[in-house]
């Protein structure tokens, strides 16, 4: 029997969804609002909803620190680590999806298990390794670390997408004379493109927002936007509105990217859920 959807039910669920959506969006909304307040308005109690808006914070933040340098570092670290990770993950996911062995599942589980450990547990060894390699506070070092950190998730996602591709199609390409790289480039990649695109987007977002490693492994040279935000909660005190302005500027690029690619992200993440 089909489930009866009454108008009241529909309205109820719509209202609930909007309510939850608003709760989730509220912190971001409040941050953007605060970024246009003066420091005094920002700490006013009760909080002010109507106030005299000002661009002052943005001007100050831009003058005080080199936003573009941080932005550039974020682009290099998030973009570089994503591309490098895809280069490693595509062949590995391909081999696990299409030539699985008895231990493929174990390898996948092991990779996922590395994400279960708190990162701080390996902070010291990784810090020391980067130090000996001379990669502390370098963009190269961070690209490698971010790549390694997100690799398990990327491989898992790609593996899931590749599993959906019928192996007969790849076999057909082999019969048609395609050598391995042509099979991957002409057949596998175009078919897996939606999955690869959403993996790429998700990884860009994860790498862009990652704060633990970027804060601990960078100082002046390779610091990305997460460090830029953190620099506004300083020993001299918290500057709410400046912190908000910095945060807004830091998340704006990734918000815009996420907004334009939301359809792709949703299709990618639910790929294969419905046949």
């Amino acid at each position, binding site marked *: 029997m089909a489930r009866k959807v009454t108008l009241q039910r529909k309205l109820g669920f719509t209202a609930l969804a909007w309510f939850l959506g608003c709760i989730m969006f509220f912190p971001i909304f409040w941050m953007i609002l605060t970024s246009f307040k003066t420091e005094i308005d920002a700490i006013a109690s009760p909080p002010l909803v109507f106030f005299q808006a000002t661009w002052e914070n943005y001007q100050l933040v831009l003058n005080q620190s080199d936003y573009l340098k941080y932005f550039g570092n974020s682009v290099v670290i998030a973009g570089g680590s994503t591309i490098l990770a895809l280069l490693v993950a595509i062949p590995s996911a391909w081999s696990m999806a299409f030539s699985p062995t008895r231990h493929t599942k174990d390898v996948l589980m092991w990779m996922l298990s590395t994400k279960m450990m708190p990162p701080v547990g390996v902070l010291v060894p990784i810090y020391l390794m980067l130090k000996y390699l001379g990669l502390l506070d370098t963009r190269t070092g961070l690209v490698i670390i971010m790549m390694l950190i997100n690799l398990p998730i990327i491989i898992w996602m790609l593996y899931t997408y590749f599993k959906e591709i*019928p192996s007969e199609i790849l076999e057909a390409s082999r*019969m048609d*004379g395609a050598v391995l790289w042509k099979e991957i480039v002409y057949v596998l990649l*175009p*078919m897996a493109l939606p999955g690869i695109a959403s993996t790429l987007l998700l990884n860009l977002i994860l790498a862009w927002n990652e704060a633990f490693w970027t804060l601990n492994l960078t100082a002046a040279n390779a610091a990305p936007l997460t460090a830029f935000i953190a620099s506004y909660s300083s020993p001299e005190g918290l500057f709410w509105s400046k912190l908000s302005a910095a945060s807004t500027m830091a998340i704006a690029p990734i918000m815009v990217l996420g907004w334009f690619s939301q359809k792709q992200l949703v299709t990618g993440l639910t790929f294969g859920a419905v046949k």
Partner: protein
Amino acid sequence: MGNIVLEKVHKCFGDVEVIPSVDLDIKDGEFVVFVGPSGCGKSTLLRLIAGLEDLTGGKIIIDGVDVSDSTPAKRELAMVFQSYALYPHMTVRKNIAFPLKMAGMPQDEIDKKVMAAAESLNLTDYLERTPGLLSGGQRQRVAIGRAIVRSPSAFLFDEPLSNLDAALRVNMRIEITDLHKELKTTMIYVTHDQVEAMTMADRIVVLQAGDVEQFGTPLDLYNKPVNRFVAGFIGSPKMNFVKGKDADEFDAHEIGFRPEHMSVSTTKGRWKGVVSVAEHLGADTFLHVKTDEVGTLVTRSDGEINVNYGDTVYVSPNTDKIYRFGADGLAL
């Protein structure tokens, strides 16, 4: 050329032996059908010939060259898959052109060959469509187009018609047979449908549990089955088997007789029974007759016969057309 020889071909998946040892000699230009029940190893054997599976032992020789360790591409065979396995992101034109592109053929030559293949398969109107927009029969044609376009030394078909509806299946069966007559290229065709096997093949390989039970022409298999398995597998409805004193009479462990070699009477006959199922197909009528002495027998009579469910009838085999088998299942 397309002479394919299998020498002691042996295949295991892990500890499971799928093909113990197969020897076959498929002549150039022959249409050979591999037939057998599910899981008999027919598809595996085809995939071994294609190079999609590695041999555990033995040799595969194509036109005198040992290709046992060659990649699929080097064997110059074309394959049509059960699921068609078209490239969903490419148009029909690109699908058909793909093997030529992989072979590094110049573009103008590719265009010519693709057009020729499309014309022969009535696909010219669909060249710019993607496979998702085609019907099952059209997809099958594209798959065949992709196979014929590069003039392979042999075609391999892996149950290519099983996803089509009955009417289309008959049409495609005729098209593939015509294609074979036109191209005169070796074709190896895997199916579990013995009607397909009987109607299409020059010679049929009957497989069971990875062993070749018999390799011969369709009528050979029908008239002179080497054992009980082949006798029961070829022919529809299946051959009836009877053991005991009725078999002793013919000096055999077991006797078999085909439904079409039996007579049905309402008055007298060898075995008395009750009709448990009456299938009136129009031209033919199949009766399942439940007897006390020898169990259920299936008969094939004229469509005109006026016998229905629950009627009592007498059935008798045509004694000239009796197959005799020994205790080991081999024909006597």
